[in-house]
C-alpha cells in the first residue's frame, strides 16, 4: 500500500488532533512527518530560496565548521564520548554563569524537540492537560495527542500575542503550559515583565502546574523589555526553559538543544530523554555546539546574527507594510504577515518561482503567511517574487 501524504496526515496528524482539541493543534511536525513518506516534498534544489522553516541562512560560522573539520581530518583529539556531553553541559552553564547556572541545571537533548516531548510526557496525564496557544509550535500538542493526554488551546490576542489572562484561566489544574516566546508561527514576543508576572500568578493559582518557556528564538528579540527566564527556572521547580542550536547558532541539521531547570526538574525530565537513558546525542551536535558557545563567549556571534537578522527583518516588514499588508510585531527570524489571500495559493505561486515559503497555520491560513527571513540578498529576490505573486492577486481583486 502506498501512503500518500493525504492518507498519512489523516491517520497521524490532523485526524488525531481533530478528535481532541477540536482542530488545529497537532497538525504540526508536518514537515518531518510528511517527509517521512514524501521524499520530494521539501527537497531544496540549487537556486531555490528556502524561507519556509525558520532556519538561520548563514549557518554556524567558520570557527565551528573548522573545529569539526579538524576532528574529521586530524589535528584535534576528541574526548571520550560521555566526556563530550559533559563539556557541552559546562559550556552551557558558562553561557549562563551570571545566573549561577550549574552543570546539573542543564539537560542536553536531540534538538529541543526531545525536551518538549519529555516535559509533555512527565508533566501531563489523562487528567492534567497540556495548555498552549493556538497556534504555536506543535510538538507538545502533537506528542500529547500521541500518548492520549488532553490538550487545551487558548486563542491569541488581537496582536497575535499570547493572551495572558485567558491563558492563566485555562492553565488552572493543567499539567504543563507550553509558552513559546517569541511565539512560532506568529513571531510576537511577550515582554519580560509581563511573563514574570504571569509565571508568578500561575504559581499562585495553580501551584502544581509546570510551565515550559520555549526560548528557541530568544536570540533574535530586539524589544527592549526582554530577558531570559533561565534565572527563574533554576530557582523554581515548576519552570523549564528550552533552548536550541537550530536557530541563531545556525545548526538545525545537527540536532542539539537543551533545557535549563531546577535540579529536581532536570532529574524528572532526564528519565524521559534519550540523551540520558540511551546516550543518543550525536558527536557532531555536541562538538559543534560546544565550539559555538566558546566562539560566542563574549556574545558577539549572537549579537551580530541578531543585527544581521534585524536589518533583513526591517527591510522585509517595510516591503509588506508599504503595500498595505500588515505584519505582526516580529521579534524572531521569521515574520507573520496578513497577505489577504490563502497561504496555500501564495505558497504554490511562490514555489513555482523557486521560493519556498508559508505553510498553513490554522486558524489563520486563509489570510496570514509565515515567511522565514533569509539573507538580505535572498529577501531582495524573494520580495520580487512576492510582488509578482501578490501584485497579480491585488490587481485581480481590484478589478
Amino acid at each position, binding site marked *: 500500500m502506498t501512503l500518500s501524504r493525504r492518507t498519512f496526515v489523516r491517520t497521524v496528524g490532523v485526524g488525531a488532533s481533530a478528535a481532541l482539541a477540536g482542530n488545529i493543534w497537532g497538525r504540526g511536525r508536518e514537515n518531518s512527518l510528511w517527509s*517521512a513518506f514524501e521524499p520530494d516534498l521539501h527537497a531544496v534544489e540549487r537556486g531555490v530560496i528556502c524561507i519556509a522553516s525558520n532556519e538561520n541562512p548563514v549557518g554556524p560560522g567558520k570557527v565551528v565548521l573548522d573545529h569539526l573539520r*579538524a576532528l574529521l581530518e586530524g589535528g584535534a583529539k576528541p574526548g571520550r564520548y560521555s566526556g563530550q556531553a559533559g563539556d557541552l553541559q559546562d559550556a552551557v552553564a558558562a553561557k549562563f554563569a551570571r545566573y549561577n547556572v550549574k552543570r546539573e541545571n542543564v539537560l542536553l537533548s536531540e534538538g529541543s524537540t526531545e525536551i518538549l516531548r519529555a516535559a509533555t510526557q512527565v508533566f501531563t496525564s489523562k487528567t492534567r492537560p497540556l495548555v498552549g496557544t493556538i497556534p504555536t509550535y506543535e510538538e507538545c500538542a502533537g506528542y500529547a495527542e500521541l500518548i492520549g493526554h488532553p490538550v487545551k488551546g487558548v486563542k491569541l490576542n488581537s496582536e497575535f500575542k499570547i493572551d495572558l489572562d485567558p491563558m492563566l484561566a485555562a492553565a488552572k489544574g493543567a499539567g504543563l503550559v507550553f509558552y513559546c516566546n517569541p511565539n512560532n508561527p506568529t513571531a510576537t514576543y511577550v515582554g519580560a515583565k509581563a511573563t514574570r508576572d504571569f509565571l508568578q500568578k500561575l504559581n499562585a493559582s495553580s501551584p502544581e502546574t509546570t510551565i515550559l518557556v520555549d526560548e528557541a528564538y530568544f536570540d533574535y528579540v530586539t524589544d527592549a523589555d526582554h530577558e531570559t527566564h533561565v534565572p527563574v527556572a533554576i530557582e523554581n521547580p515548576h519552570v523549564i526553559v528550552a533552548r536550541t542550536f537550530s536557530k541563531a547558532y545556525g545548526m538545525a541539521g545537527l540536532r542539539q538543544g537543551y533545557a535549563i531547570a531546577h535540579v529536581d526538574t532536570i532529574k524528572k525530565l532526564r528519565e524521559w530523554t534519550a540523551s540520558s537513558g540511551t546516550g543518543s546525542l550525536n558527536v557532531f*551536535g555536541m562538538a559543534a555546539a560546544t565550539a559555538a558557545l566558546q566562539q560566542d563567549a563574549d556574545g558577539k556571534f549572537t549579537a551580530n546574527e541578531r543585527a544581521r537578522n534585524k536589518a533583513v527583518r526591517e527591510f522585509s516588514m517595510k516591503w509588506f507594510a508599504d503595500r498595505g499588508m500588515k505584519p505582526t510585531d516580529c521579534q524572531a527570524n521569521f515574520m507573520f504577515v496578513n497577505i489577504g489571500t490563502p497561504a496555500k495559493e501564495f505558497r504554490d505561486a511562490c514555489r513555482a518561482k523557486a521560493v519556498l515559503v508559508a505553510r498553513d497555520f490554522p486558524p489563520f491560513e486563509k489570510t496570514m503567511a509565515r515567511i522565514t527571513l533569509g539573507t538580505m540578498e535572498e529577501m531582495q529576490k524573494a520580495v520580487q517574487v512576492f510582488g509578482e505573486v501578490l501584485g497579480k492577486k491585488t490587481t485581480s481583486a481590484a478589478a
Partner: protein
Amino acid sequence: MSVSRRGFLQGQIVGRSRSAAEFMAARGHEEHVAEAMQQGRQGGRAMSRPQTPPGVEAIRISSNENPLGPGKAAIDAILGKFPEANRYPFNSSPLDADLEILIAKLNNGKRENVTLGVGSQEILRNAMRVFTSSARHLAEAWPTFENCSGVARQLGVPVKNAALDANQKTDLNALLPLAKGAGLVYICNPNNPTATSVTGQALTDFINEVRKTSPTTAILVDEAYSDYASPSAFGSVIPLALTTPNVIVAKTFSKAYGMAGVRIGYAIGHVDAIRKMARYRMPYNVNTFGVAAAIASLKDPQHIKDEAARNTAVRDFTVKALADLGHKSTDSQTNFIFTDIGKTMTAAAFRDACAKHGVLVGRDFPPLEKQWARISIGTMEEMQKATDAFRQVLRSTTTSAGQ
C-alpha cells in the same frame, strides 16, 4: 592525506582516519549507555569504572564499537555537507527520506517499510512503546542487550526471560512459550553479550510458530552485529519481516559501519508495524551529517566486507590466544567475544587486572559474570597488546592458584 584500504586491513590508524575514527566511532558509547541506564536504576550512583595506570593510553575493548570508524566515503560525504549545517533534515540534500529509500531499495522493500531512529536505540524504545503495556509483556532471552528491559522498567512493563542454551545461544524452544500473549519478543541476533547467533532457518521457524500461537505478538529482531556474522551461522530475517505482520528488524550504523557517535539506526519490516513505529519517531530525529555519511557508506559495500574480514582475522587471533591459555570462547559471529574465564577468575577480577595493564574489557553480564568475560575486538595491534595482558593476568592467577 589519504588512507589506503591496505592501511586499514593492517590496523594502522593514521592521520585523517585516526581522528575521524575516534570522533565518529565513539568508542565507549555502548558502555556509556549501560552506565547511564544503571545509574538510573541505582538512583544516580555511577558504575564503578576500573582504573588504568596514570599516563597509559587505554586500549578500549569494552564497548563493541568498530575501532577504525567509517570509511573515507563517509567522511568525504560529511565534509561536503558543511554548507548545509543550518538546514533541517527535511530541507537538506540528501534528505533523511533519501536514506530510507536507499535502505528500502537495498532490501527489496519500499520506503514505507523503513523508519529511521536515533541509533537503533530509538527503534527499540519505540517498539516497546508501541507493542508492550502493563498487560502485554516483553519476552526475551537473558542475558541479551539490556535496552528493551531498561525501557520495560521505565514503562512498568513485565518481562519474561528465557535462559540461554548450553552454547550461550538464544534458546528459541525456551522462548516460544513465553511469547504467548507477549506484546513484544526481542531477539538480538547475533546476541550481545554472548556473540552467538541462531540460524536464519531456526529463527524463521520460530517466527512462524509465534505467528500461529500468538498472532498479535510483535517480534523485534535486532541485527546490529549481522555484518560481522558468517552466512553459515546467521541469516537475516529482513525478507520475512517485509511480508510478515508484526515482524521488525532493527539495524544500526554503530557497529560495522563505524559510526556509533553519529546515532543512526533504522527499523525495517511490515508496513503496518513500521507505520505504528513511525508515529512515535521523534521529528527531525537524525542529523544531516549522519544521513550523508550513512548514504555514502551504503554505497560502498566493499568497505563493509573488508571490515568484516579484518574483524574475523583479529577475532580468530584473539580467540586462539585465549584458547591457548585454556579459556574457550563461544562461537562468535560479532566484533566481540565471550570467553569462559571461570576457572581462573570472575569478570570483575579480570576487568580490574586488565585495567592495570591499560586494557579495558567489558562490564558484568549477570547471571554469567562469575564465569564469562566479554571482550570487544580492536585492531590487530591493539589485540596483540591486549592478549599479552591477558596472558599475564590469566597466567599469574592460574599459577598462583596451582601452587
